[in-house]
């Protein structure tokens, strides 16, 4: 196992720069997830760590070694691809054994390692099958098995669950996390799904347009997003964002005043954004009146789309709500959990 250090890494295709100086420290044994919308550069960064893309500027270290000019196979990493990239003409066992066979490992050792990986992943009955004969989840597991048998310094996952259906994705999420807890191999995982990031990562790196927006533990990102982009990206349903001004009594949106627990004195009178997560509304008699547009009960909670003044907001309540569309309910944001962002820079100000 090894740490991975990404230092001021840049990537350009011709004159088009796509990654603008990214620095990330990944501790030994850590599970780090790079998350961001399509085209943010997260997969490119992962492929640079793997050695499948050249590094235009900066430095990547795996362990103590700078790997900028080290061939992929010398980097001692294993990668799981989005489309699994299983060799269709080889059985499950041969797929997993391929790297060891190329290394000319003794047959007994290959068999032992393949069997061990198959056991960990529950693939033992499938060893003689071809990839075509497997379901999506099984193929995904073979791809992981191929990575495990090599016992690499670092695992790289490139959107491994995107091709699976929703239910399978949830169970594979758990399996990958359990696997990491068992093997404790340093892992870098790329996804565009913030729920995957929240549930699996030790550390999340939110990327956008080739830069790192924020880096930290999942709940830190959730509780204290540093800017409007992270605030909107992390959390589902997304945070409600209302535009207005901070004044001495709270936050003014049109003729509504929303409660704020504390705003820096210097920010009073400034145009800003008011962010409140859907689950941080409460039903209270002294709340503000909002008009219900849609009620979506999920069983465990109720999601309400409502209109407050001219703005549309989403609230999520643990309790069940009998309100019908068109009716008015009284809701109050929890002032302690309000996020304020500067209107021009989008940075957090409270």
């Amino acid at each position, binding site marked *: 196992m090894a740490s991975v250090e990404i230092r001021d890494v840049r990537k350009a295709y011709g004159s088009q720069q796509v990654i603008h100086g990214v620095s990330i420290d990944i501790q030994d044994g850590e599970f780090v997830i790079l998350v961001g919308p399509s085209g943010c550069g997260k997969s490119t960064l992962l492929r640079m760590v*793997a*050695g*499948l893309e050249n590094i235009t500027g900066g430095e990547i270290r795996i362990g103590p070694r700078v790997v900028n000019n080290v061939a*992929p*196979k010398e980097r001692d*990493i*294993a*990668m799981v*691809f989005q*489309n699994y*990239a299983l*060799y*269709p*003409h*080889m059985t499950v066992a041969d797929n997993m054994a*391929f*790297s060891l066979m*190329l*290394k000319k490992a003794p047959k007994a050792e290959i068999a032992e390692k393949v069997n061990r990986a198959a056991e960990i992943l529950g693939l033992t009955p499938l060893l003689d*099958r*071809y*990839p*075509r*004969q*497997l379901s999506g989840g099984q193929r995904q597991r073979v791809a992981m098995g*191929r990575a495990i048998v*090599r016992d690499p310094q670092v695992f790289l996952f490139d959107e491994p669950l995107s091709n699976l259906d929703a239910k399978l994705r949830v169970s594979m999420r758990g399996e990958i996390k359990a696997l990491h807890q068992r093997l404790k191999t340093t892992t870098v995982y790329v996804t565009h799904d913030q729920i995957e990031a929240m549930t699996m990562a030790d550390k999340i790196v939110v990327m956008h347009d080739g830069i790192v927006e924020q880096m930290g533990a999942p709940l830190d990102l959730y509780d204290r997003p540093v800017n409007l982009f992270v605030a909107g990206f992390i959390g589902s349903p997304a945070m409600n964002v209302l535009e207005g001004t901070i004044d001495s009594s709270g936050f003014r949106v049109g003729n509504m005043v929303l409660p704020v627990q504390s705003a820096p004195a210097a920010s009073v009178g400034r145009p800003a954004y008011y962010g409140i997560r859907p689950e941080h509304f409460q039903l209270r008699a002294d709340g503000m009146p909002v008009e219900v547009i849609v009620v979506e009960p999920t069983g465990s909670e109720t999601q309400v789309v409502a209109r407050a003044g001219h703005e549309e907001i989403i609230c999520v309540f643990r309790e069940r709500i009998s309100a019908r569309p068109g009716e008015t309910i009284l809701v109050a944001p929890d002032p302690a959990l309000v996020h304020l962002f500067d209107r021009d820079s989008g940075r957090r100000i409270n």
Partner: protein
Amino acid sequence: MADAAVQDRILLPSEPKASLLKSRGMVGFLFMLPALAFLLIFLTYPLGLGVWLGFTDTRIGRDGIWIGLENYQLLWEDSLFWLSVFNTLLYTITASILKFALGLWLALILNEHLPFKSFFRAVLLLPWVVPTVLSAIAFWWIYDSQFSVISWGLIELGIIDTPINFLGDMENARASVIAANVWRGIPFVAITLLAGLQTISPSLHEAATLDGATGWQRFRHITLPMLSPLIAVVMTFSVLFTFTDFQLIYVLTRGGPLNATHLMATLSFQRAIPGGQLGEGAAIAVAMIPFLLAAILFSYFGLQRRKWQQGGAD
């Protein structure tokens, strides 16, 4: 509505002819009729006629009579026939191996990121696009005993003193016609294999690279096995085309010198048309059938879907 119901009731006990025309199978059959007629007239009839002629002593202008296997007995003792069999096998095997090796090599090159890639791909098709007779005439000049551009070039370079006798010497003539055939056949192999190469997902190569495979190992363990079903198809066609080649030989050498380049197809033509022995010519043509069948059977087994291509049984 009521009208429609009445109509239905009237139509129901209609004649069987109408319902036959309405059935899907009958319609399908009707659509196939033109193709069937085409095949019967232009494929089955000539083939059947050829086989029948082989058992007769038909000559041009004179109906033959049934003579059983006499033609074949004559051929069995005919050393020229056996020479043409040898020539045909040599021609087919050598040219096919060369076409495969060079075609695969070209396909691999064109699959890389080259400047002017589409230009090269278009140029590659030229030998295939030019009519055989025209390219054969061009080769005829290239191989000319006095005006050959190759001989001229080599003499200018000081490598040889006298022009090469391309088509006048037995060995040279064989090599020359094979070279011309290879030149003509490469595009078919290269373009088809290139199409196959492009269906191989780049992530397989990336995965193999990360698994530690060198360029050669990736070719050996990924590219070649994944291309093998297509190789079987392409090479079957290539072998069939080469085995039955006629135009190139007929324009370049007419089977000479000393019958060194006489293929079964050219010998069959020579005996049947200029020689007038239609029966004997047909027998030679029919003698090609077992070889072609063998090639087809070989590819039939080679073409069977590999186990890894089959879908899940459960």
